[in-house]
């Protein structure tokens, strides 16, 4: 990041000591870190909104512990929020922060290794008592042992000045302590020349109703932080970032889970069927349940089921009745739903399973991201049990792919997986708000019995889908179930030939969906030395890495799969135009295995399972390694 003028470069060399000079930079990566009780997520979200609002492109990465409140001041209790804001089109939250705000020693210890050399480090002096440092595992004060010498350290008395600022309010000591995140935000706003009025409005919104008494003290703390930074003359320089050139239109900041929920509502409008969502709370998918539960006035019905299996069952029941049956979960939940999904495959009912993937196996890393449930989605059921699989590529793209998931489910009368991940779910980006009236309608006829009996497993000649005959349709009463069905009639059948026919039919129906999914698009040249092929939330890092490599003259392009079963029709053709193919994935090579098996193409993998998204540099280095090897091979 900041290859052409990052925060640290200028600041290190400046010794003016004044706060008057502004340095213009292209982008800044800032990470707010503190104890999970310090309000870092709120602070980060507010600064992100503000950054987008003043005209920057943004990408965000929250990172928080699985425990609600790990013991205060300890390493497991550290929560952080990273924001990349820039004057150009960005795709990732950035590899290394230019600015790290660490509100306690534990936050420093966990995050320091990521801070860019020479970067700005803002510390809370008041949190560095012996006890605090001991809790973080420091035997010596890191501020004095030379370990911070490579950074611009601003060791500020954040707690004490903040407490003094809110002294004359009605806050209790505990409430007063909690305003220090706004004080810190005030400092950061000064550093990046942000007007406070928008953030004040946001504070009023957050602290409304019963919490209204907290709004003014928090505004007081925000202003105090801003004025403090202005007064102390500690910072060498302030920074400004230009506005990004985005396509015209109305924007908002969008997280993946919010986009997912809205996308499913959009699907319901596009298809003209009510949305029914059943889910059992699970990290990181619960926000979809929260979002949809607010939308009764859209006719959206939600149910918090007794377990994951029940949630899948309810979605199937709703689909059987003609609604858009949806269930959402993460990997462990999908494991429990598998049998029910198999039922929907045999009953040929259109359900959607949203899996917000997290680190596995088992309980794994609930709050961290991973892409290791791809094979589970494609093959993780008993029997030959195909399912269509789609995956959004960015937080905002969750909206589009949610619409796509249901379009395919009702068109082909079969379950569809929507594979999001923790990174997309909680990450955010500026999102061009679409016009809902322009979303393409999917018209699925609802058969009536007026023109005679329609067998429940008769076939649409184009899609091979069976008709969606729902209870309440006079004259078309029939029975379905998980026992093998005779084609056309839908009667129970143990016939050997029929079973093979039906097994193949279910697969060919899913394979046939290729006719209604878009082709792969290549970013960069249509052919060349290397194709980087990704799926899901890795799009940003891949795109950025490929752009960097192309700028250096390398023959590399990238493409991104949003449809993973079936693959787009031109996949083989695209793969065939490159000498080498690289598939970066946050798993041990699941997509690579599928592509190799299907297209017999040798593919290299870049695999990472650390609960964190790819850094651009990791992909970029792999690109150079592969292309330089080729050069050497050719030369040697």
């Amino acid at each position, binding site marked *: 990041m900041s290859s052409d003028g990052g925060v640290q470069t200028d600041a290190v060399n400046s010794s003016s000591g004044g706060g008057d000079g502004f340095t213009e930079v292209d982008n800044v990566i800032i990470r707010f870190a503190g104890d999970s009780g310090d309000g870092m997520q709120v602070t980060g979200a507010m600064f992100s909104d503000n950054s987008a609002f003043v005209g920057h492109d943004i990408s965000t990465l929250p990172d928080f512990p699985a425990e609600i409140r790990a013991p205060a001041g300890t390493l497991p209790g550290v929560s952080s929020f990273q924001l990349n804001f820039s004057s150009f089109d960005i795709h990732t939250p950035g590899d290394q922060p230019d600015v790290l705000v660490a509100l306690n020693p534990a936050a420093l210890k966990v995050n320091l290794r990521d801070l860019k050399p020479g970067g700005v480090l803002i510390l809370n002096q008041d949190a560095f008592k012996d006890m605090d440092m001991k809790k973080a595992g420091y035997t010596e004060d890191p501020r004095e042992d030379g370990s911070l010498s490579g950074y611009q350290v601003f060791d500020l008395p954040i707690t004490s000045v903040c407490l003094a600022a809110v002294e004359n309010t009605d806050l209790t000591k505990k409430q007063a302590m909690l305003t220090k995140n706004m004080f810190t935000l005030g400092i950061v706003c000064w550093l990046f020349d942000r007007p406070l009025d928008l953030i004040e409005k946001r504070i009023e919104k957050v602290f409304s109703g019963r919490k209204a008494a907290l709004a003014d003290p928090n505004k007081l703390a925000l202003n105090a932080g801003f004025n403090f930074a202005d007064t102390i003359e500690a910072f060498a320089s302030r920074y400004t970032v230009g506005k990004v050139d985005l396509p015209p239109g109305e924007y908002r900041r969008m997280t993946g889970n919010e986009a997912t929920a809205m996308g499913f*509502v959009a699907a319901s409008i596009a298809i003209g069927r009510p949305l029914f969502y059943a889910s059992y709370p699970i990290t990181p998918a619960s926000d979809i349940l929260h979002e949809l539960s607010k*939308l009764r006035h859209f006719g959206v019905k939600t149910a918090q089921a007794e377990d994951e299996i029940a949630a899948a069952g309810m979605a199937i029941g709703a689909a059987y009745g003609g609604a858009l049956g949806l269930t959402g979960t993460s990997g462990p939940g999908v494991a429990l739903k598998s049998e029910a999904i198999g039922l929907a495959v045999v009953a040929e009912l259109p359900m959607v399973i949203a899996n917000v993937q997290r680190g596995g196996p088992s309980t794994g890393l609930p709050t961290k991201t991973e892409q290791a449930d791809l094979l589970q989605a494609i093959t993780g059921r008993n029997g030959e049990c195909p399912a269509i699989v789609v995956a959004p590529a960015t937080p905002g793209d969750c909206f589009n792919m949610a619409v796509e998931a249901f379009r395919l489910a009702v068109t082909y009368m079969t379950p569809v997986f929507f594979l999001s991940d923790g990174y997309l779910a909680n990450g955010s980006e500026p999102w061009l708000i679409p016009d809902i009236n322009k979303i393409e309608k999917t018209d699925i006829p609802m058969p009536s019995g007026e023109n005679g009996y329609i067998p429940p497993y008769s076939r649409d000649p184009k899609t091979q889908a069976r008709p969606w005959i729902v209870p309440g349709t006079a004259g078309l009463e029939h029975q379905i179930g998980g026992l093998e069905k005779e084609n056309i009639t839908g009667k129970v059948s143990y016939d050997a030939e029929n079973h093979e026919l039906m097994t193949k039919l279910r697969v060919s129906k899913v394979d046939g969906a290729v006719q209604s999914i878009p082709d792969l698009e290549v970013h960069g040249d249509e052919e060349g030395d290397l194709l980087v092929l990704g799926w899901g939330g890795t799009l940003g890092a891949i795109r950025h890495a490929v752009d960097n490599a192309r700028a250096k003259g390398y023959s590399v392009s990238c493409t991104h799969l949003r449809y993973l079963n079936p693959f787009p029709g031109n996949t083989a053709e695209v793969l065939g135009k490159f000498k080498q193919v690289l598939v970066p994935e946050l798993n041990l090579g699941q997509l690579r295995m599928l592509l190799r098996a299907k297209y017999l193409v040798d593919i290299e993998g870049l695999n990472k399972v650390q609960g964190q998204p790819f850094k651009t540099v990791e992909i970029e280095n792999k690109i150079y390694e592969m292309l330089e090897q080729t050069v050497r091979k050719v030369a040697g």
Partner: protein
Amino acid sequence: MSEVAEYTRKDFAAEQEVRWCPGCGDYSILAQVQRVMPEICAETNQTKENIVFISGIGCSSRFPYYMNTFGFHTIHGRAPTIASGLKLSRPELQVWVVTGDGDALSIGGNHLIHALRRNVDLKILLFNNRIYGLTKGQYSPTSEVGKKTKSSPLGSLERPLNPLHVAIASEATFIARAIATEGTQMRDVLLQAAKHKGSAIIEIFQNCNVFNDAAFDAFAAKKNQTEHTVFLRHGEPVKFGKDNEKGICIRSEHGALEPYVVNVADVDQSSILVHDEQSPNAALAYLLAQMDMPEFPVPLGVFRNIKRPSYDELLDQQVVTAIKDRGAGDLNEHMRSAETWTVS
């Protein structure tokens, strides 16, 4: 619905050949359900196409194939979940669940209790034969202690569950029991369940003549019924025997209420227990549900029948209220509910 067609029993019989073992108790349950359905449709103002039978796995769960209604034979233990999803999204349908002792109380125990406590308007028929039939004879969660089966050759070590106790603890609003072979009683209970708004569960004692034959004969055989069963009627004294000469009284022993059998002639008539299926207190239903052979007659009929709003009704109301309060949802507006900015 303004017009309700008049149906006959034949309208509800599917063409599918019935494939239970000859002599299975399921045949008589099927016959009674088909027979009472026209009356249920008339009394509940319902059309045949709006009736749905949903089952899990087990012998009983083949039931939907034999009904000429919409039917869904689902997966083991999960029928209440699929039925709940259907009923919540299509409240106008009349949804029946057919399940067995293994399906409902073992693999599907969790779903049963939650469907009942939510008071989803489902009619659950629990065929209890106290054995696993479809898997060819293992003990079930309602089999008696010491039961010798293929999986318990030395005798089962497990205490059985009483389905009615489970239903009471799960806050079911309609709880009843019937014997498969007693058509009149069963049709009466089925009709009452259909008319009840909310979760209704009926335990039906059903003989498995292949793997657990004569399991209920001690009270359910014709010759034993008068002496060893008592049919509960709301507002009436609980009496049984050939001439209703015996009755149930309640006394307090060691701080606990307990029933005892009396000769009606020997006691003050007012001391005989009067059945109250509508009691808001579940204690009476629980007391009755505990009565068992050989000390007591086995109670049949409706144990509990109380009014509470059903989940599907309440969910629908939330939708209606939300639309009234906030107007019908507008996604264009909703997408702008966060801070927005315009790039020109």
